[in-house]
């Protein structure tokens, strides 16, 4: 089936997008830019007769989807721009996308808020760290801070399973001999509850200059209030089903 791709690609001058992905049985190919919705009607099965019917069915289906919103000729996603910008400006297809400064301005990042009541500590911290780092975005870049801000409220109500409440130890060392200080989860929660979530999330963020800056995007608060109403935070989408404590 690779022959289909190879033979027809000769007609197109090096535009990578149509060359790879066109697999039309009908030759409705218009120069470089072909309306993408026609591409969707692929022939996935080898036999031509069934593929034609499949193609027709798929094409009708996709056009119905499109036309319900905007007619395909005016849909901005599929507008054929003449000449294709790729040939005039920088090569946006063959160079892997890297964010410009305007793509990661702090003022335009999303703010999320999450209530820590009765959520398992580690799973909550993992979700938070993913959102802060930006790993859920398609524009993820490891060297750039593309993530969002996360506000955690009710930090003192975060839950742990098993006997961790009395057995999980938080250690720190002052640097001097004999300077190890140990606290249990319960003691730390009474003393400084925010530190528990901060400790957990910091362990899940990268360690380094960027990681330290990412950590400043986490805001943890002990009660239900937070001073960031002006940022209009939205609810953090949680995919993990086991994040709620099973009683």
């Amino acid at each position: 089936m690779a022959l289909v791709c190879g033979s027809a690609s000769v007609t197109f001058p090096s535009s990578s997008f149509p060359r790879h992905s066109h697999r039309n049985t009908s030759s409705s190919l218009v120069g470089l830019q072909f309306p993408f919705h026609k591409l969707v009607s692929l022939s996935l099965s080898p036999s031509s007769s069934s593929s034609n019917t499949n193609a027709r069915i798929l094409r009708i289906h996709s056009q119905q989807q499109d036309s319900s919103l905007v007619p395909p000729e005016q849909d901005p996603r599929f507008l054929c721009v003449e000449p294709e910008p790729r040939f005039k400006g920088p090569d946006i297809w063959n160079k892997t996308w890297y964010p410009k400064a305007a793509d990661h301005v702090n003022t335009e990042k999303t703010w999320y808020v999450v209530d820590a009541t009765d959520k398992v500590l580690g799973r909550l911290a993992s979700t938070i760290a993913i959102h802060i780092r930006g790993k859920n975005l398609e524009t993820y870049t490891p060297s750039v801070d593309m993530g969002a801000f996360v506000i955690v409220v009710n930090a003192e109500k975060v839950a742990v399973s098993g006997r961790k409440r009395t057995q999980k130890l938080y250690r720190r060392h002052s640097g001097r001999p004999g300077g190890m200080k140990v606290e249990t989860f319960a003691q730390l929660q009474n003393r400084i509850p925010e530190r528990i979530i901060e400790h957990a999330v910091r362990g899940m963020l990268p360690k380094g200059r960027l990681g330290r800056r990412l950590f400043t995007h986490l805001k943890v608060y002990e009660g239900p209030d937070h001073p960031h109403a002006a940022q209009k935070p939205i609810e953090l989408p949680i995919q993990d089903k086991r994040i709620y404590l099973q009683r």
Partner: protein
Amino acid sequence: MTRIKRGYIARKRRTKIRLFTSSFRGAHSRLTRTISQQKIKALVSANRDRDRKKRGFRGLWIHRINAIIGKNKKKQYNRYSNLLYNMYKGQWLLNHKIVAQMGILKGNCLLMIANEIIT
């Protein structure tokens, strides 16, 4: 034998190396012996990392594809692995780079493809 001084031969060789290392930090661009060592290390890293670069970018593309597929499609099989499997089944010859670029630049197109081929 007649006495032969080495003259400036060694210095000529070292100035070329020094030019290569001229932007390195601290002693690595100032001290003669360190300069020779650092040049070797730099070239070794460059050689090795030309192959790692290929690995690294492929991983980045895979991650980006997974992110956009998993983000918007709330169907059951909204993962990179399913997308790739169905692409192979449907004999799509797109490489990872282009699929990832499509995800960023023309995200809706990629989602339309994914909707069609992920059953």
